[in-house]
């Protein structure tokens, strides 16, 4: 029945692991070729989208938003009031983000984002989510024991810090506005953007200088 490993069991020693192409690859190739042939899509458009997400879109967009919010109080106010409109000022927007709430961390309030049902994520602003965000472990645990999960991921918060877990199961997407670290007063907006990480904008890390 089972060829997957767990707990070190080599359940099926006769399973042939030699260079088999995964079924997903085999079926994807066939499906794409038929869709291309029928004109449902063009493979060159698929190429473009892959390249766009591999090379263009990523956490840097979110980092620009955060750095601007740190340096421009009026922008920050607009961002917290209507995330997507404010992002549009920076030329950001696109699929899987119909509405964006930006939630602000403070010394006493820490925000963290998850989607327990399927891994919803603000692609437009942060790129595609990392594997851990999509993992069963994160999806199951982040809502029940965020403090423990954060500690395991390297962010230990005292019990005096309230943790808010945003389970983004509807079409509203969330971006965490991390705290600006001390000692960054002299950095430019571009330099600030360089230190803002994806993990800080999901809420599983602080921004470090």
């Amino acid at each position, binding site marked *: 029945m089972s060829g997957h490993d767990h707990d070190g069991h080599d359940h099926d020693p006769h399973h042939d692991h030699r260079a088999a192409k995964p079924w997903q690859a085999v*079926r994807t*190739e066939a499906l794409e070729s038929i869709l291309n042939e029928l004109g449902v*899509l063009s493979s060159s458009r698929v190429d473009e989208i892959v390249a766009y997400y591999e090379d263009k879109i990523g956490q840097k967009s979110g980092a620009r938003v955060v750095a601007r919010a740190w340096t421009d109080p009026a922008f920050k106010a607009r961002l917290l009031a209507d995330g997507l409109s404010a992002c549009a000022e920076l030329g950001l927007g696109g699929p899987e983000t119909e509405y964006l709430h930006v939630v602000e961390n403070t010394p006493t309030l820490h925000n963290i984002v998850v989607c327990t049902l399927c891994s919803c994520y603000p692609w437009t602003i942060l*790129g595609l989510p990392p594997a851990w965000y999509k993992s069963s472990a994160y999806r199951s645990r982040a809502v*029940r*024991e965020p403090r423990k999960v954060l500690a395991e991921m390297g962010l230990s918060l005292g019990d005096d810090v309230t943790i808010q877990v945003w389970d983004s199961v509807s079409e509203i997407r969330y971006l965490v506005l991390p705290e600006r670290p001390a000692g960054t007063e002299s950095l430019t907006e571009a330099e600030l953007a360089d230190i803002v990480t994806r993990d800080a904008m999901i809420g599983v890390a602080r921004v470090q200088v």
Partner: protein
Amino acid sequence: MNGIHDMGGLHGFGPVAVEPNEPVFHARWEGRVYAITQVMDTTGLYNLDEHRHEIELMDAAAYLTDGYYGRWLFAMERILNRKGVVRRAEVDQRIAQSADGEVAPVDPADRGWPLPDERRIPWGAWRKDVEVAPKFAVGDRVRVRNHQPAGHTRLTHYVRDKVGTVTVVNAQAWVYPDTRAHNAGENLQPVYNVAFTSEEVWGDAAEPNTVVRVDLSEDYLDLEAAVA
């Protein structure tokens, strides 16, 4: 539906494994599946909730082992087959023919493509040209309905029957996933962010000083006590 995809609060999946320097896609096929789905979003063939519900219908063990984009592929194949756009047997045949090096074109006739304009359905969830009047206000105490449909829902199991406080009213016209997934109506309505204490949701397993904030369609909620 109650299923393995509704993972909030489950034990047993171990620590969160972080992969350093992770690529955007871990294999070529992952990128193709992602991008093909992006194109599908624009064809009008199916909507976001159909996509999600089809994933929920996977065999539970396969859901856990086939990978994130493997789930997407599974759903896409099933939907395209059901809608007569690309039939499963055609994919199987293409695979067999590719192995033999002799690929015959499929017959474009007699299938669900091209799709007439009047049958195209929108992918996304916000209908900007419609206004809705919210039933609940910030501060209202609401109880989540014990709503357990066999079909699609975005009501996470762990807040069912729990009481929380409305903290954000998203007063836009959002489609109701439970009916839209089955093409049974958009039922446009507000979506509320509701804050639940960890104690309310997780009982004796609650972490201190923790709040769970969940976005919930209006039809998932009943008023428990209006804001004073």
